[in-house]
Structures are given as structure tokens and as C-alpha cells.
């Protein structure tokens, strides 16, 4: 068998798919929650980046990975609330507000990194912690399956749990129902006494928390440092995953896995003799192609959406 195929069908490759899927999955769940409440959250990219940095800084100064995790999640929530304040209270166009926050995050994190670690590239001078790896007691001994999901970072497990929790939250709780009602028809929801602003604020906070977990995974699980622009578009890919997954948590999970596969593949191919630049293009090209193929139906006078 060709070495590439052999590698692709190995259990360690499957395990690496789960690892690289984690941050995209968190963010795409965040995208689903915000979107169902009727807000396009393109600030996911910036949220992840800020959380990745805050997690590293907090864990370095307290010596605790969990404090870092909480700091990352808290900063994600904070960015979500800032976005909510500008979009809902000051009526800023939500896409432009998202772009502003992403711009702020991209350079602001470098600014903070320089102020804290005196380095504009990576945070390796900070003694930051990583989130622990976990071994699942019985599952790890099952052949193949054990090698794939038996031992992963705790955040990877958390992301899989989050799929179920977000699903239950959106479709089995009364608040989830209200959230979807607000997204479906804000005027109708308002007329039955649901505060549209309040629901959307909460949705953005949840969205920020999820993106924050994804960010923390990048800098404290996937690798053990923060580097500038380390999200490299994952927040945007998460938006594509949300669209591809038809705004449903399970769908977003499957779509994130697809992007995880291309990501893992490009990581693997880099070790072969394919020009790195080409390989790094793969996830983005796949996203573009999927976006086109999946959106599928040709328009005549069809509906438009600006998201």
C-alpha cells in the first residue's frame, strides 16, 4: 500500500484527526448557538485568539492549567458581551463589529504578548501549563478504538461532550426553545414577552465561552505555547462548518470532523516531500469547494442571506 494511504488508515492518524478537530468543533458549536439566536458571530476567530493568549498568561502566573482554562473561557465570554454591547445596544453592524474585534485580537494579542513576555512571536519564555491528557480506563484497551479515543487531551473529550450538551440545551430546554424562537422571528418572540436582547446577550456569552475553550485547546493542549495568529482562520472555518452542518450541533460536529481530516492530512503531508505552502492550502481550498458544492442549489430569484 502507498505510504500515504497506509498512514491515513492508521489509528494514530484517526487520533490526530480528533485532536485537530477540537478547536474547530468548539468554535463551530459557538457559531451554531449565536446563529440560532439570530446573530452572525464572525468574532469567533478573535475570541479564540484572545482566549488562547489569556489562558497561557493566567496559567503561567498561577501555575495552574485550570485557572488558565477558566481565564480563557472568561475572556471568550467577555468578548462575546462586548460584541453584544456594540451590536445590540449601539446597533453596530454585527459583521463590521466582528471584523473590528478580530483586528483587535490579531494585533492586540501581539501587543499584550510583547508587554508580558517581551516577544512578538511566541510565548515560550512564559512557564505556561497544558491541560492534562486523560486515559479512559476500559476503552483504552479495546483494539483500534482504544488507540483512537482511549487517550486524548481532556479538552478533546470536553468538546465531544459539548456537542451533546449544546444539542440538549438548544432542543430540550425551555431556554433553548426561546433562543431559537428569537432567532427564527424576533418580533414574534418579543410579542410573547421574551427579551430579544437578553437572549442574544446570553447566546453570545455562550458562544464566547465555547470559542474560548477552543482557543485554550490551541495554546494549552494542541501545543504548549501561544504564537501570533495561531488560530490561522479556524474561527472562519468554524463558520463554514456551521453552515455546512445546517446550524445543527450534530451537523456542525460532522462538518468539523471533515475539516479536521483535511487539517490532519495537511499536517501529515508536510512530512512528505510536498511543498509546504501547497499542503497548507488544503483546508482552505476544501472549505471553499465544500461551500460551493454544498450551498448547492443554483439561484434564479432565490433567497439571499448576508452571512
Amino acid at each position, binding site marked *: 500500500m502507498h505510504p500515504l494511504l497506509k498512514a491515513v488508515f492508521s489509528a494514530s492518524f484517526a487520533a490526530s484527526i480528533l485532536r485537530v478537530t477540537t478547536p474547530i468543533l468548539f468554535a463551530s458549536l459557538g457559531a451554531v448557538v449565536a446563529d440560532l439566536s439570530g446573530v452572525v458571530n464572525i468574532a469567533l476567530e478573535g475570541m479564540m485568539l484572545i482566549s488562547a493568549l489569556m489562558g497561557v498568561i493566567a496559567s503561567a502566573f498561577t501555575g495552574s492549567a485550570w485557572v488558565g482554562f477558566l481565564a480563557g473561557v472568561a475572556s471568550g465570554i467577555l468578548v462575546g458581551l462586548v460584541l453584544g454591547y456594540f451590536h445590540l445596544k449601539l446597533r453596530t453592524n454585527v459583521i463590521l463589529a466582528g471584523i473590528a474585534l478580530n483586528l483587535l485580537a490579531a494585533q492586540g494579542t501581539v501587543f499584550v504578548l510583547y508587554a508580558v513576555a517581551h516577544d512578538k512571536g511566541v510565548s515560550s519564555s512564559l512557564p505556561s501549563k497544558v491541560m492534562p491528557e486523560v486515559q479512559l480506563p476500559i476503552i483504552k484497551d479495546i483494539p483500534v478504538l482504544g488507540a483512537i479515543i482511549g487517550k486524548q487531551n481532556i479538552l478533546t473529550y470536553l468538546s465531544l461532550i459539548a456537542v451533546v450538551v449544546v444539542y440538549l440545551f438548544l432542543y430540550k430546554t425551555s431556554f433553548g426553545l426561546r433562543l431559537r424562537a428569537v432567532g427564527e422571528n424576533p418580533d414574534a418572540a418579543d410579542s410573547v414577552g421574551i427579551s430579544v436582547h437578553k437572549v442574544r446577550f446570553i447566546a453570545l456569552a455562550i458562544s464566547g465561552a465555547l470559542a474560548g475553550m477552543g482557543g485554550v485547546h490551541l495554546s494549552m493542549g494542541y501545543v504548549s505555547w501561544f504564537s501570533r495568529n495561531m488560530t490561522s*482562520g479556524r474561527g472562519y*472555518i468554524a*463558520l463554514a462548518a456551521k453552515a455546512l452542518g445546517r446550524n445543527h450541533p450534530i451537523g456542525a460536529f460532522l462538518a468539523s470532523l471533515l475539516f479536521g481530516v483535511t487539517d490532519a492530512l495537511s499536517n501529515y503531508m508536510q512530512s512528505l516531500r510536498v*511543498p509546504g505552502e501547497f499542503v497548507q492550502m488544503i483546508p482552505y481550498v476544501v472549505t471553499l469547494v465544500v461551500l460551493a458544492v454544498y450551498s448547492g442549489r443554483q439561484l434564479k430569484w432565490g433567497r439571499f442571506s448576508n452571512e
Partner: protein
Amino acid sequence: MSRNTWFELLRTGVAIAAALTIGFVVTSLVSESPVEAFGYFLKGPFTSIRRFGSFLEAAVPLTFTGLAVSLVFSAGQFNMGAEGQFFIGAVAATAAGVFLDLPPVIHTIVCLAAGMIAGAIGGFIPGVLKARWNASELVASLMLNYVFLKLGMYLITYHLRDPSAGALVSLPLKESSWLPQFTRTTKLHAGIFVMFLVVFLCYYFLYRTSRGYEARMTGQNLSFARYSGIPVLKVILLIQVLGGAVAGLGGAVEMLGIYRRFQWQASPGYGFDGVIIAILARNNPLLVPLAAVFLAYLRVGADVMAMYADVSAEMVSIIQAVIILLVTAEAFLAGYRHRLTLKEVKQRASAS
């Protein structure tokens, strides 16, 4: 001056003042001598002829990306592709400048055309995805930015690289492709004429042609535009291609005017600054150069500050973000506008 223009000017002014204040607060959080550091930031572009020159030079690429974003924003499209289009335009111009052998002026024109075509393709892809398949141009153009960055670096590394140079740079551009620089102290170059021409053409297109009118209608009210018989899908595609062409041309002008080899390792960020410029200029091409000068001032000021003080240049992103947020916030100072309107109505009522 109409009440609305006055109000918009005021709002922009207050937003910029608020942003600079926040910038100063952040500076004082990290700096030993914040007043001095912020002084470098504000006065930086005027401290030497060379810096004043680089301030004006920086306004040229920013005008191009500002125009590109203004065009697509006018039609209500959130195409964020100017970043990648600018980059790939510069790469295409480099390729044409390195490989072709043509007489001086013609060579320059061919290189500019190459950049323009590359950028136009970059606008066509999200445009056609949107117009034919209703795929989000926002996500598509953001993805395309990464594709173009990687593709550009691939072309430079594997096909245009100068093996004798130590760093990763392209072979030198042939002298016949250069846009001439005016003086030795600054790099101000003939591309500025191309810039003014494009400013005028964009204005003419948007405000003096029926296609431009259709584009603006589409941006203001898509359903209305459709019901009045405007072929909105065609208009959207056209405007994205035009926006891409302008951004790509900007990349080519920057390459031929300022550089002698391609030497970027990362995208220079003019595309996202173009978004701020379009917002400040209210998508009006004639105002874009003014907004670009302002953004260039912030950029060069930040560089000077980073050179002489203990604050890094990225501080400026905070100022930029606050400007976008406040200028586009409809409710920002809305109470003031309301009182202004009320006063005018009362005056009219008492006059009649």
C-alpha cells in the same frame, strides 16, 4: 452643509477622539513614559522628510484597498478579500516584472494589468459562488485570503526565488517594469497618478453610470432593487470583480513603485485597513484618499513610536478597532441627532 453631513463629521470626529484617548490609556498601562511615547506616535510622521515621505507612500496602497472595499460595500457585499487580492496582485506583477522582457512603459503597463487580472480573479471566485450558489461571500473571501497567501508564497519560493540571495526574496524586477520614484530621499513614485486615476474612475462608475447606480441600489435595498428590475446577481458579480481588480492593481503598483524584489513573508495587512478606510469614507471614492492618509498617519506614527519608545506598534490596532466600532454604531450619539432634528422641526414650525 446639510445637517446629516455635519452630524456624520461630528460623529467621526468624536469616534476618532475617543479612540485616541483609549489608545493613550493603553499606552500608559505599558509604558514608563506614556506622554513621550504617545508624542512620538502623534508627531512621528512629521519628524523628518523621509518619514513624511513614507507616510504619503503608505497612503497609496491603502487608497487602493480602501477603494476596493468601498466598491463591494456599496453593493452591500461583505467581501473581505482585498487582503488576498492585493497580495496575489503583487505576486503576479512580480512574475511579469521578472520574466518578461519589454520596453519600459509597456512593461510597466503589462505588469499592472497582470496584478489587476490576478486580483479580479480573486474577486470573481467569491462573487460567482455568491451569485450562482448563494455561498456566503464573507466566508469564501476569508478562505481565499489564506489560499492566495499560501499560493503566492509557493510561487515566490519555488518559481521566482533568487537562489543567490540570502533571504527568501524573488529575483529582481527588470528596471523596465519599475514605476519611477520622484526623489532620492523618499520613495514617492509615479503610482500616485495611477491612484488618482482609479479614484476618479471608481467615483465615476459608482455615481455617474447606470451600472454604478444599480450597484448602490442593490446595496441600499436588495429587494427593492430586484423588484425594480435590476439584475442584482450580475451587479454583485461585477462589483466583486471590479473590487478585486482594484485591490490587485494596488498590489502591483506597490510592488513596482516601492520594491525592487518581492520580499514579503506575510500579508502586509492593507486589505483589512481598507475596511476601516471604506467605513470612514462612507464608501465614497472621493473621500477614500483622505481616509487612507489618516490610516497611513496612524501606521507610520505607530512605527516611529515603536522605534523610540517602549510601546509596540500593534497598539494602533486598538485605536483602529474602536474607530470601526464607534463610527458604524448607529446608536452612537443618536440622542444628539434626535435633539438636533427636533430643534430644526420646532424652528420650521414656528417660522411657518
